[in-house]
């Protein structure tokens, strides 16, 4: 049976062992608790009226809160399994005490037992599931929790079946003693499993991620708490209605025990059927959220019947649904909702919900019952049904919040487990820190002052104003230059008198910088002053003067400045021409001066050309676009041309898109265009990137994709054409499939360097195709989450892989999920091959056939390597294919084909 279960739930061998061990432990725990519940309820209903129950529930709520805190404190330093074992032993011993006390038939024993049973039962169950959850990731949990749950259900069935005969043949004391024995029996089971390593090592205790996170800091946690509270309240109301109807029908202790025993058996049989035959289907087709929603949906129906037709049948059926679903489908689904939280936070939230919120919920339900009783003159089945209906609405709202938050938390979890880190910015918002940094401006040390200037520039630039005179007199040249640059950038209305003294500075660099700053501040009538310096022997001063003329001369002097500079350009060294170009690049308006740019774009000196290309972008004149595009295709000027074109922005995107999608344009130029479009980064740039649909050159295809990713990272609001992205994604998945098939068709142990290289090249193709698939997903889904998911699915750690796959399953739309998930979810190459075979009609083939297919394929590099293999292996039968490759345009293929031809001829 256990092998059948393992096959049915598709468990790996170690998972099956773990699931069976945990299932056995849960069998004992639940079996024991079922006996206890039967005895508890039978004794209570026989001794006391059910109207006492709400008071008991309120006390249970308060008591459990305290007990939870005490239990957590006592077991703080213990591992999960140790806490469970300690709890089982102490509770088992307490049951022996109560079994003896039952002989007294005292009401206080009944009430004490009711309270104790409620308190210990859920703390122990909570501890068990915390232990089970710490051993697995969401993917494994989905597979194993069902099997573990079956163990619990069988335990419940066993407990229910033996409760009635034990109560009839002996007494309720015997039932409680049997429960105690079963409970203590879990300890050796636990010890054995941990000792044999079956249940392995749980997550390390002590400081864990999330230990310091405030419990209710996340909206998701608050929704979980609300959903749990509503669930418990409705369950408590339904339970009260059930007990109300039972007490109306039965009064004898034995009859009560029999009915309750049979009820628990029915619950567990129903739960078993749901678990074995329905749960998996529900989880697959409805997901965790949908499956969990079935419980409140069924309760809503049951509540409607209880309002319309109150009676034992409706009460039993509703309670049966509540219990059966709660033990099977809902339990598994709810456990999965905790997985996205960090381990420390998860443990604390689960403990809080299962031990505090659920008990609190019962207490609140108790108060509600009492309140309804007072207001309506008695809490009847019908009135309680109406109250339950109201709480069900709140439950529905909470469920929707959990469903939304699950995905967000999964993304956060995947990022966390991928160990990515986010950049942290230092903020100087606090006045005290700013004051301290300001004091540093008076330091004699250059680096201290420069660092302080940087920090204040970003966070409190106004503070620098008061220190400018002092900084301009600082002993360090670098500080004086930096200050002049700051004035130019941030204080264009600063008084010229502030900087004039530095015209006589001993350092030529400072003098040059002062000249530039003076021009920036003065703006008018500067040409006369500068003209004299244009022919200075001091290269630094001359360069500064040239830059100033080009950059700062006003519109009224522009034409005269153009003529002056044209004269300078005729006889100046390259350094001066660079200064002209630099000055033009920084010029804020486009006018006659930019006529100087055209000759500079053709300058013999590379540095001049590069600077002129950048300036052409600043000039923004369309007549320069073709020159820029031409320069883009040359290695020595591509970077400068890229900068120049990017400044044009959308005005040049159409032209670039034309070049990109024109296959007659040289590839080196087309390779550079995606960079420019990513710098532009607008929706029009995205359209231009997607116009190029030809995938004959893989390098170009990949650069277009990377450029798209860069745009996506910079601006999340830009939309990408989903249909085209999906089409490309499916094509990449297809290429992944092909590469995988060829890779697996090649020899397991390559016999030569050629075959080794071929196997490596094929494996690279598989990996590259997967990268492209995820990059395309990053265009439609949050890119950081998709990157984290990629790192997760390619990780060697099973937990990271499981979390990543769980995220993808929930985040992706169905058309993407159906393509991507089978590629990453499958645990082995065989499973992936099976998917590839069914979807793409590809299957393993003899190595020779694989080589032949590649020799006729589109991938030039693989062809070249395949030819190398053919030549090394002397595959004479492939001679026609080798010869057909000798005329290929790609030199790698041609070269390899010629070699292979000679190799075959010489063989």
């Amino acid at each position, binding site marked *: 049976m256990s092998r059948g279960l393992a096959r049915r739930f598709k468990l790996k061998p170690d998972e099956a062992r773990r699931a069976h061990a945990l299932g056995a432990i849960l069998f004992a725990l639940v079996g024991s608790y079922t006996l206890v519940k039967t005895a508890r309820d039978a004794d209570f209903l026989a001794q006391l009226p059910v109207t006492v129950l709400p008071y008991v529930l309120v006390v249970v709520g308060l008591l459990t809160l305290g007990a939870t805190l005490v239990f957590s404190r006592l077991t703080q330093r213990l591992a999960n399994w140790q806490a469970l074992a300690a709890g089982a032993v102490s509770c088992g011993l307490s049951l022996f005490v109560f079994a003896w006390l039952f002989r007294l038939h005292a009401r206080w024993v009944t009430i004490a037992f009711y309270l104790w049973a409620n308190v210990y039962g859920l703390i122990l169950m909570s501890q068990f599931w915390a232990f089970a959850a710490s051993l697995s990731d969401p993917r494994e949990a989905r597979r194993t929790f069902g099997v573990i749950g079956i163990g619990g259900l069988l335990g419940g069935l066993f407990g229910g079946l033996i409760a009635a005969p034990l109560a009839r043949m002996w007494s309720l004391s015997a039932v409680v003693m049997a429960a105690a024995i079963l409970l203590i029996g879990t300890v050796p089971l636990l010890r054995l499993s941990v000792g044999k390593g079956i249940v392995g090592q749980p997550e390390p205790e002590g400081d864990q991620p999330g230990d310091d996170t405030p419990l209710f800091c996340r909206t998701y946690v608050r929704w979980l708490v609300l959903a749990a509270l509503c669930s418990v309240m409705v369950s408590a109301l339904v339970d009260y209605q059930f007990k109300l109807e039972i007490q109306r029908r039965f009064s004898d202790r034995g009859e009560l025990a029999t009915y309750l025993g049979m009820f628990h058996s029915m619950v567990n049989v129903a739960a078993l059927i749901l678990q074995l035959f329905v749960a998996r289907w529900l989880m697959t087709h409805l997901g965790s959220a949908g499956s969990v929603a079935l419980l409140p949906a069924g309760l809503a129906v049951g509540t409607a019947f209880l309002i319309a037709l109150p009676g034992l049948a409706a009460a039993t059926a509703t309670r049966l649904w509540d219990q059966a679903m709660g033990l099977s489908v809902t339990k598994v689904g709810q456990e999965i909702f905790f997985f996205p939280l960090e381990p420390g936070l998860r443990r604390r939230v689960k403990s809080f919900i299962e031990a505090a919120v659920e008990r609190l919920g019962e207490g609140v339900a108790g108060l509600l019952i009492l309140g309804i009783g007072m207001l309506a003159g008695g809490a009847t089945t019908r009135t309680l049904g109406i109250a339950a209906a109201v709480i069900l609405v709140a439950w529905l709202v909470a469920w929707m919040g959990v469903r939304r938050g699950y995905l967000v938390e999964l993304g956060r979890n995947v990022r966390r487990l991928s160990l990515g880190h986010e950049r942290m910015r230092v903020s100087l918002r606090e006045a005290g820190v700013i004051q301290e940094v300001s004091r540093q401006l008076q330091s004699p040390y250059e680096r201290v002052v420069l660092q302080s200037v940087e920090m204040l520039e970003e966070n409190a630039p106004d503070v620098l104003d008061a220190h400018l005179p002092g900084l301009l007199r600082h002993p360090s040249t670098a500080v004086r230059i930096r200050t002049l640059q700051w004035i130019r950038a941030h204080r264009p209305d600063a008084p010229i008198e502030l900087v004039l003294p530095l015209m006589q500075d001993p350092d030529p660099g400072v003098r040059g910088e002062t000249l530039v700053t003076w021009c920036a501040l003065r703006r008018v009538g500067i040409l006369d002053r500068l003209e004299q310096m244009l022919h200075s022997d001091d290269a630094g001063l001359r360069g500064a003067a040239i830059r100033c003329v080009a950059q700062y001369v006003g519109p009224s002097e522009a034409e005269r400045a153009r003529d002056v500079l044209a004269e300078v350009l005729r006889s100046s060294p390259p350094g001066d021409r660079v200064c002209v170009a630099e000055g033009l690049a920084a010029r804020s308006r486009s006018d006659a001066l930019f006529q100087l740019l055209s000759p500079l774009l053709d300058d013999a000196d590379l540095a001049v050309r590069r600077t002129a290309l950048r300036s052409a972008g600043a000039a923004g004149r369309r007549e320069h676009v073709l020159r820029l595009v031409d320069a883009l295709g040359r290695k020595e000027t591509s970077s400068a041309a890229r900068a120049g074109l990017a400044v044009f922005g959308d005005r040049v995107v159409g032209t670039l898109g034309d070049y990109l999608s024109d296959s007659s344009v040289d590839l080196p130029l087309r390779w550079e265009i995606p960079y420019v479009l990513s710098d532009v980064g607008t929706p029009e740039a995205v359209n231009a990137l997607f116009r190029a649909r030809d995938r004959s050159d893989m390098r170009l295809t990949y650069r277009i994709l990377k450029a798209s990713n860069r745009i996506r990272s910079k601006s999340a609001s830009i939309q990408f054409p989903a249909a085209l992205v999906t089409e490309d994604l499916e094509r990449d998945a297809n290429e992944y499939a092909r590469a995988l098939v060829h890779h697996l068709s090649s020899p397991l142990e390559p016999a030569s*360097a*050629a075959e*080794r*290289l071929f196997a*490596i*090249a094929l494996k*690279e193709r598989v990996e*590259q195709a997967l990268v492209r698939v995820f990059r395309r997903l990053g265009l439609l889904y949050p890119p950081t989450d998709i990157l984290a998911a990629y790192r997760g699915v390619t990780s060697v750690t099973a937990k990271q892989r499981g979390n990543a796959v769980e995220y993808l399953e929930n985040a992706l739309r169905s058309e993407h999920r159906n393509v991507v998930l089978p590629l990453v979810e499958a645990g082995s190459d065989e499973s992936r091959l099976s998917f590839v075979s069914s979807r793409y009609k590809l299957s393993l083939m003899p190595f020779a056939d694989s080589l032949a297919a590649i020799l006729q394929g589109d991938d030039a*590099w693989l062809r*070249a*390597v395949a*030819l*190398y293999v053919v030549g090394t292996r002397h595959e004479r039968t492939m001679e026609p294919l080798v010869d057909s490759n000798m005329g290929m345009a790609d030199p*790698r293929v041609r*070269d*390899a084909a010629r*070699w292979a031809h000679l190799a075959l001829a010489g063989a």
Partner: protein
Amino acid sequence: MEAVLTLVEKTAMLKAYPVFGSVPTEALAVLAARTQERHFDAGTYVWREGDPNRATVLVVEGKLEVRKRDKFFRIVDAGEGFGQLDVQEGAPTTVSVLALEHTHLIWVTIEELFESVSDNPEIGVGLIRLLATRAQELLDHVLILEEDVARLVLQLREAGIALPGQEQDVKSNGAPSE
């Protein structure tokens, strides 16, 4: 007739070299296309100490001996590479490289190598990893040597043998000075 490697063969050789182990084969082929092949007879110098540093080499066949100030430094076997990336391109090399037998080399100029690094950052990553590994190995050697030296000094002291500069300590301790 001297053998000439195809592009794919050169790529295979480069791929087998640890520095380029993580570089995709297709990217490596771009570097391979920029390389040259050279042959050196036994006893000839590939370069001498003081020659301008121009290249890094990968041995296809044969064996090289690296000598520093005319003293043996290391052997470079087939499949291994050697270069002085710490020395500026064109600056004088600090070692001589001698072919011990007829040696067939793949010759990569430093300019081409660094240009390939800018085109394919994975090559740079491979170089960094190799250098980090070498640095760690050297550090391990130094630590071992330090331990050995400390042990020897202790043994010498116990035997009463003075090290230079420590004769006074031994005499004042009453131990024999010889």
